[in-house]
């Protein structure tokens, strides 16, 4: 490893940008993922990259990394024109990236993962030493000999960072690094980044959907829309509303904007010394009849880890209950459980007062529970089946007669739903894969609501949706509730929960740490509950 001083010398003069992109374009068939993008990234700066889903942020970074080949354009590293054909080239150019997916090998240890992709002999002792050194320098504690499969999400994130920083990249790219971190962890991360940039004169590209993060952490900011650069500014000279407008191309309502952009005050965890106010027990707006959905003492253990412990929650008909918490606290397992993918080791789910036999496939659906799963690609839709097929997936019996699926009936149902839910698709026979994220989500929503459920569980329903789609989704959830459906909204976005829910339950480490009526919920109180402070 070169020392910091050496690099600092090497990298002067700072006047030349570390990275200069000119006219980068990339098409995927009809989709222009990158449209003549120009971008300068300077040493000693954090450069924020903003944009809606599908704006082309990841594509641009993949081009930089050699994972995707650009159609046209030039890349300059310092003063030289370079070509990046594969990730090895990128490494040689000193470009490192912390990926969102697919970059750690579970079966290997931390140190093995960290040196993966290097060249030369393996020196275990040296590697461990380096891991420890890097982890000390940046405050990212980790055991170099641990197997990655045993690590938590946050720890994995640390490994990713260490792996990247150890390569000593002069350009560091982070693609949505905070989505699985607690606020405290995010704050730590930004401290590390500051250090990296200020003291070590590196260039950092930070991709995020969260405006607050961008405004707090970056020096420069670039906004992409539909593959084009639509806005560039020094961060200090712009404001979050301005950025939001640039991203979506119009003014957005404050609520939706806040929810869509994740504008959480990033002021760190609440001071822990002060004892939290005692939260009153759940008080539904009107003391309704029997709850439509009752979760009773649910405990789920996966691979020896208790992911949910004694989780209890009621949702009354006509009510929207928000389940709020930082990602990785058991929400996804709860979603899986309510999708029938995971069985609890103890506890029960009651629908309209009757316990559901969770072992029976499809029992929840039959008992009247509709669900919008968190990861629609993995369990919500079958990407390679058609829109129509996905729409009738759960009620295939209803569109069959005499043992055969009736294409006619299927199309009739699908046409009706597509019209009602504004699903835009090339055709009903087109695979769902060809739909945009928002429309894929509408397919799921349409399917679930069309079954006339008594309970609707929406897990991260607006993830990956643009503002218009978010507004639509909100309206549909409210409509469903006012129609008497009990809605459980599982979300990591505070603004979203605040915007929709009449009661807010907070989940932390697999248990409910408190339930507040929306009126009493403030960011501070929720923040404390999220941190597990009020048990």
């Amino acid at each position: 490893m070169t020392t910091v001083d050496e690099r600092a010398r090497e990298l002067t003069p700072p006047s030349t940008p570390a990275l200069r992109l000119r006219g980068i374009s990339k098409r995927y068939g009809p989709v222009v993922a990158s449209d003549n993008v120009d971008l300068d990234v300077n040493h000693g700066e954090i450069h924020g990259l903003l944009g809606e889903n599908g704006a082309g942020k990841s594509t641009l970074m993949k081009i930089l990394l050699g994972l995707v080949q650009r159609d046209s354009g030039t890349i300059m590293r310092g003063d030289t024109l370079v070509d990046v054909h594969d990730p090895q080239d990128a490494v040689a150019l000193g470009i490192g990236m912390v990926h969102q997916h697919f970059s750690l090998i579970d079966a290997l240890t931390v140190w093995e993962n960290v040196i993966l992709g290097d060249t030369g002999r393996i020196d275990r002792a040296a590697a461990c030493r380096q891991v420890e050194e890097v982890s000390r320098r940046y405050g990212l504690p980790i055991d170099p000999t641990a197997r990655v499969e045993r690590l938590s999400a946050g720890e994995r994130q640390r490994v990713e960072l260490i792996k990247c920083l150890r390569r000593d990249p002069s350009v560091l790219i982070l693609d949505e690094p905070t989505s699985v971190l607690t606020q405290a962890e995010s704050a730590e991360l930004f401290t590390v980044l500051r250090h990296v940039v200020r003291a070590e004169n590196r260039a950092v590209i930070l991709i995020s959907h969260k405006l607050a993060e961008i405004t707090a952490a970056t020096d420069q900011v670039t906004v992409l829309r539909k593959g084009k650069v639509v806005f560039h500014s020094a961060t200090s000279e712009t404001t979050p509303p301005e950025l939001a407008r640039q991203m979506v191309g119009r003014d957005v309502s404050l609520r939706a904007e806040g929810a869509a952009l994740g504008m959480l005050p990033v002021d760190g965890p609440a001071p822990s010394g002060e004892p939290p106010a005692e939260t009153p027990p759940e008080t539904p707006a009107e003391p309704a009849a029997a709850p439509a959905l009752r979760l009773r003492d649910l405990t789920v253990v996966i691979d020896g880890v208790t992911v949910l412990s004694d989780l209890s929650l009621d949702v009354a008909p006509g009510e929207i209950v928000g389940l709020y918490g930082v990602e990785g606290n058991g929400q996804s397992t709860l979603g899986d459980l309510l999708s029938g993918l995971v069985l609890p080791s103890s506890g029960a789910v009651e629908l309209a007062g009757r316990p559901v036999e969770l072992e029976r496939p499809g029992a929840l659906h039959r008992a009247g529970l509709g669900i919008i799963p968190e990861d629609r690609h993995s369990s919500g839709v079958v990407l390679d089946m058609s829109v129509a097929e996905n729409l009738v997936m759960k009620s295939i019996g209803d569109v069959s007669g005499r043992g055969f699926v009736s294409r006619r009936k299927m199309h009739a149902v699908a046409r009706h739903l597509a019209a009602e839910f504004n699903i835009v698709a090339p055709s009903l026979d087109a695979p769902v894969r060809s739909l945009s994220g928002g429309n894929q989500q509408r397919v799921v929503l349409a399917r679930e609501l069309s079954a006339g459920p008594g309970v609707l569980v929406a897990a991260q329903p607006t993830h990956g949706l643009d503002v218009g789609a978010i507004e639509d989704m909100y309206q549909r959830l409210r409509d469903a509730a006012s129609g008497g459906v009990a809605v459980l909204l599982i979300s990591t976005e505070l603004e979203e929960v605040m915007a929709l829910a009449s009661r807010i339950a907070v989940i932390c480490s697999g248990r409910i740490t408190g339930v507040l009526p929306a009126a009493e919920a403030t960011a501070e109180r929720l923040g404390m509950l999220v941190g597990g402070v009020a048990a």
Partner: protein
Amino acid sequence: MTAPSTGAPPGTGRRLLGLLTPRPYGWQTPVATAVGVVVALALSSALITLTGGSPSASVQALFQGSMADWTAWSSTLLYAAPLLLVAVGACVSARSGSFNIGQEGQVLIGALAAAWVGLRLAINGPALIVIMLLAAALAAGAWAGLSSLMHRLRGVNVVVSTMLMTFVAQQVVAYAVNMPWLLQESRVGNAPVSPQSNPLPPSGLLGSFGEYPGLQINGGLILAVAAAVVIAVAITRTPWGFRLTMLGRNPLAAKHAGVRVNALGGAALAISGALAGLAGAVLLASPVGVNRLQPGMAMNIGWDGLLVALVARNRPLAAMPVALLFGVLRSGGGFLAATGVPSFLVDVVKALLVLAFVAPPVVVALARRRRSGGRTAGARQEAAPVAEEAIA
């Protein structure tokens, strides 16, 4: 960063399925295939010339033995029937996402069961052949079901277990035909007996329509075509097939949608085994073989049937012409050997031709992807046509 996922990862099967469906590309695939065949034939010719044979005569013999007249067609169809049965079964399991490669053994188990019923149950009349076919399907279905059970109980990889079970099946049959109390042929005088069963009684044979030298259609072919049609309809038109496709393409979503993943996956594997078992019964009871159980009687029909399904991209109807093609290779190859071309060389020619049919679609797909620039792009873009086609 990977968020800890709680659900099971999408199965191996699905990814294999993706591979089992080389993507179609208009005119390019046929052209590439033609080029492949020409290359294979050229290589074969070179080899044949080396032995002092005549390549043109060999091509002619291939044709003569397989398509030149009704007799040749009859023999081609005889081979095509068991191949088609195996292939249709392979389509079912591949669609469900569990990749069965143990057909060669399942064919043998089917033949074993059919032979046992045919020789040991004193039934006369047409009931016998029906019971034989049922027994074959049941036994081989159960045999394949064992792999499913192992997957379910202990997570044993289906590909690995079906492969290993093939070798077990071979020894089971070898054992059965060596034990007089099981199925070994009866001794006449003091002449030695071979490791094979007695020939089946006439009521245990599959009848044929048509007479030599005209076109002869054996009951096995009718069975195979019926199976292909039924399975094709079941896969594409029934709720069951709908669930099966869902399972194969996204097991998690299927489970979420209320599909009983284990039961359906197991059923698919058992059905594919049962169809392979039927193929074994057809090998046993139709004139394609010698109507007795022999350890070598599977004659690679299981492996080749798997190839048929693969070339047909797991569509039972498309498997029909492909099975016919493989039937042509077999009957033509047999005829070629009868012209004096060494039979090992015939095997080489067949292997080269199989490569010629399997490789070109993939080459075309790859060339496409290379040309389209984005290396990441390929998979995503190509997925669309596959899906449409599979559903159509």
